[in-house]
């Protein structure tokens, strides 16, 4: 039943004391929060503790929450703040993200089902060639699907700097993924192959 509510209404239910609404939000966003948390700090326990604190905090201070029309933004921003504080690296009023790592792909990159070794290494090189901030902004904007304003707010950037950084990162990625496409067996046919493959899975 909560699925049909928009973010604003769903959030309002929590503010009014609806614990099921909180559970719904938790279930919807847990994977996202965990994924992003692990990027900020690859320590599973710390991330889970922070998510625990975040939701406990929301519930206990629900009457003082401000309305939001983007729950995803609210949660990701709050989680980042909590994790930074946990790490004791948050330097208030300064650039709070200087000391934050944004874990790159030193482990394995899972590109769909194609896990060919050589290809994987090339991909790692591409994404690791990007500065940490650029990886993070791409992630928030495209993988999490936040809008540019929200992305800017989480990264403590002005909206215009966010646009600049984003287009820089995207251009880099576009140029380099040209090479990637060529790595695929039978470049032209591969796209359809990809699509049909994932359609079958779907």
């Amino acid at each position: 039943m909560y699925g049909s509510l928009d973010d604003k209404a769903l959030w309002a239910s929590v503010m009014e004391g609806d614990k099921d609404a909180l559970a719904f939000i938790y279930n919807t966003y847990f994977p996202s929060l965990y994924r992003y948390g692990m990027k900020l700090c690859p320590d599973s326990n710390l991330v889970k503790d922070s998510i625990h604190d975040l939701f406990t905090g929301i519930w206990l201070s629900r009457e003082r929450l401000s309305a939001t029309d983007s729950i995803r933004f609210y949660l990701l921003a709050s989680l980042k703040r909590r994790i930074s504080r946990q790490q004791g690296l948050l330097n208030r009023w300064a650039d709070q993200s200087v000391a934050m790592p944004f874990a790159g792909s030193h482990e394995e990159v899972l590109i769909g089902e194609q896990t060919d070794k050589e290809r994987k290494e090339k991909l790692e090189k591409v994404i690791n060639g990007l500065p940490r901030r650029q990886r993070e902004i791409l992630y928030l904007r495209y993988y999490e699907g936040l809008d540019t304003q929200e992305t800017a707010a989480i990264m403590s950037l002005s909206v215009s700097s966010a646009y600049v950084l984003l287009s820089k990162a995207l251009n880099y990625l576009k140029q380099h993924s040209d090479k990637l496409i060529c790595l695929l067996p039978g470049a032209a046919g591969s796209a359809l192959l990809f699509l049909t493959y994932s359609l079958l899975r779907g």
Partner: protein
Amino acid sequence: MTSRDFTIEELLQHPVFRQWVIERDANAAAYWQEWLQQYPHRAADLAKAREMLLLIGGPSHAPAATDAAETWERVLQSIDSSSRLVQMPRNGMRRWWSYAAVITGILIMTYAIYFVVRKDTLHYATAMGEMRTLELPDHSLVRLNVNSTLRYSEEWDNDGPREVWLEGEAFFTVQHQHNNRRFIVHTTDVDIQVVGTEFNVNTRRVKTQVVLSTGVVKLVLNKKGTSGTAPAQAPITMKPGDMVTYSSVTEELINKKVDPAAYASWRTGVLSYDETPVAEVIRSLQDNLGVIIQLEDDSLGLQTYTGSIPTNNIDVFFKTLERSFNVHIRKTGTNTYTIVNQEDK
């Protein structure tokens, strides 16, 4: 279904694209299959965009199967066992338990006293499209914008500060009183302390924005996580024309000089913008008029808009955009619009 010839950026921005690639949603997959039939020559771009998105996602640190449930179980325990306002126990925080117990006791007492002595609270809320002017017990005036809420105690004693609580947007004209009695507007993010002055407060979008028209304002930032009682940093003193924006969620503080009239013009049914990014104008229109405008091309959001939009005639805005940026506005529902590039309507 209307589909169109997306660029790679547009694919990346498309919610259904994300659903297909990340969530592997079957309906989303069907959508792109259909799209591909219409634009077969774009197959390589679609694959490339997918590749890029997966690359952006990087190595997926998937939570273990039980992580979500276990963490939620802990959340429920903490919620049930803890009294309001008490800090959560956490590894390394155990020694705070004894302090917590004492604080809980004090809080419960305070709470009890509060309920005994408190006076009735008045609660005013406006709906979308509804504005309201309220006169407070001290004859100060509050112009409450659409979709906003103001709370305050029914009776004000003569010594304590005059206090109101705001969500949404309002313009305050505060009467100065002989004994320099303070007037405080509380929001989630800040406490705004004044003696007698005019200012606009906007608490939408997970932050509070204060714009001072005349007089002097003192701003106390609410730091979450510092347990409320910790001494905050020195209050910020604002002068006329100052705009301060603070979010207690992101702890981001922005200070700017603006034309205060532009931020208070909504009172007269006109929204004014001066070199304002289009994306911000769109958010403001959503807050003030309840219309939702989507940009097919994000980069338009960065362009700036200068001009006035009457709240009963949004077309003024659309006409200017169409003239200046070679775009076309498509009405997609009663209150929803999409701005598309002129070439591909």
